[in-house]
């Protein structure tokens, strides 16, 4: 060992490369992330008689509640309406839970952060991936539904898992951006909880893209909501046909995801080390 290879602790590549090297750090730590994801999921469904089945019992129960709510308010919904709400809840839930979990990922892991060093991007990534995995498990519920409604199982069913990943991806950039800030002011966490609740109604969970289109102006505005794309893609996949969403809407959504990731990873790398001192 010579004195020449002595390097400064915590030296990182230039910030401009943050979107790329954080991804590399994620790949380098995949064994760790996998273990942490398993820990998170095990912890969530511990000591539950029904165990992992809760991943789809919960959205199913919610869908029933919203079905009756809608039935009382609007009367006579489409027979597929309950199914649309169910898949909407699942996909929105993936986004909402991923966002909340990633925003609070550093604060929740403060004990680990104070005692061991590894790239901290691992924490928000674990939070998102944990929710993607549980959401994929809850998607099992679509098979009985497809049988009940006589929907054909086609190649387009793959749109459902794709939407789960897309929803998780949309949450990643924002979550990574806000996680360091949440170490300083926990207000962020409370604000995000509110935004997730409000966003539920602004996004096509209880309504659909097709319903919005019938309302003219409202439909035009709805396409600017990035969450419209994953939810609508999943519904079309469930119905077993190619999506009728214009490709510009899909591009808008993916573009939003990439843009938030670029900004988010930059902000995370810039502030993370200062932020953990507040923990």
């Amino acid at each position, binding site marked *: 060992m010579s004195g020449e290879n002595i390097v400064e602790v915590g030296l990182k590549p230039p910030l401009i490369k943050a979107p790329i090297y954080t991804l590399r750090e994620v790949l380098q730590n995949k064994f760790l992330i996998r273990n942490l994801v398993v820990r998170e999921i095990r912890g969530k469904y511990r000591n539950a008689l029904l165990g992992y089945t809760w991943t789809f019992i919960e959205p199913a129960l919610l869908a029933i509640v919203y079905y009756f709510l809608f039935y009382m308010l609007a009367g006579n919904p489409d027979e597929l309406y309950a199914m649309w709400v169910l898949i909407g809840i699942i996909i929105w839930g993936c986004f909402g839970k991923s966002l909340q979990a990633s925003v609070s990922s550093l604060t929740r892991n403060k004990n680990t952060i104070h005692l*061991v060093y590894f790239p901290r991007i691992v924490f928000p990534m674990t939070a998102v991936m944990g929710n993607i995995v549980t959401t994929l498990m809850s998607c099992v519920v679509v098979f009985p539904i497809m049988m009940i409604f006589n929907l054909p199982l086609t190649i387009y069913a793959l749109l459902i898992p794709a939407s789960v990943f897309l929803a998780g991806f949309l949450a990643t950039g924002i979550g990574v951006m806000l996680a360091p800030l949440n170490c300083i002011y926990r207000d962020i966490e409370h604000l995000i909880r509110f935004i997730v609740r409000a966003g539920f109604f602004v996004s096509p969970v209880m309504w659909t893209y097709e319903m919005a289109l019938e309302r003219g102006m409202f439909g035009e505005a709805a396409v600017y909501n990035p969450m419209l794309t994953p939810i609508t893609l999943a519904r079309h996949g469930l119905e077993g046909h190619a999506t009728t969403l214009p490709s510009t809407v899909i591009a808008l959504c993916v573009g939003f995801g990439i843009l938030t990731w670029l900004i988010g990873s930059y902000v995370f790398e810039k502030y993370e080390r200062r932020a*953990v001192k507040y923990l």
Partner: protein
Amino acid sequence: MKSTVISMENVTLHFPKLSSLLSMVTGVFKKKDNKFTALRAVTLEVKAGEVFGLIGKNGSGKSTILRVMSGIYPPDEGSCYVSGKVSLLAGIGTGFSQHQTGVENAMLYGSILGHNESEMTEKLPEILEFSELGDFIHEPIRTYSAGMKARLGLAVASAIKPDILLIDEVLGVGDPQFREKSKTRILNLVEQTGTVVIVSHSFGLMKDICDRVGVVHKGKLVMVGTPSEAIDAYYEITE
């Protein structure tokens, strides 16, 4: 002349204090220090193959020095350089999951400490043997006693082979027999590892294993010397 493997130059570290909105408003009229200085211009060099001890009262900044070396906190002023892979042993069993088995937790903790899958698979038999948990290893660790958890944690933590090992008061867990065994294991680890920085309150141990010892007081490194010089200085300062 041995090369320098850890070099801290004038490291100063502040911890911010958080103020609420109310105190921010009232604070405009009062001049108030809103940070806590944990380290003040610490300069320190550790040579290859050296066992360096740090002593000082609780809260003096010993552990913070190790955390700066391991990259947990970046210094606000000054800089810290290291050569090779650094491992910090602190808070044995960090990140244990109560609902998973001993084996799963061993893998989890190993990955937290920076091992990849193949390293852990290779070391697992040795870890399980050292932990002396027998069949309990397949039970969820919420059923373990505190000593059993500590044994598992230490077994994993001491299986590492870094270039520089930082030890933060991890001895003295478990029953007397295991404590003896773990001390031997740590000492072996210290011997095998090139360079070690150790924080401990057991001065007997420090005398036995350290080449040099530094005394930390109120965030400053007040002196560095032979273990007995440092221990004498410690009593002088703290009295």
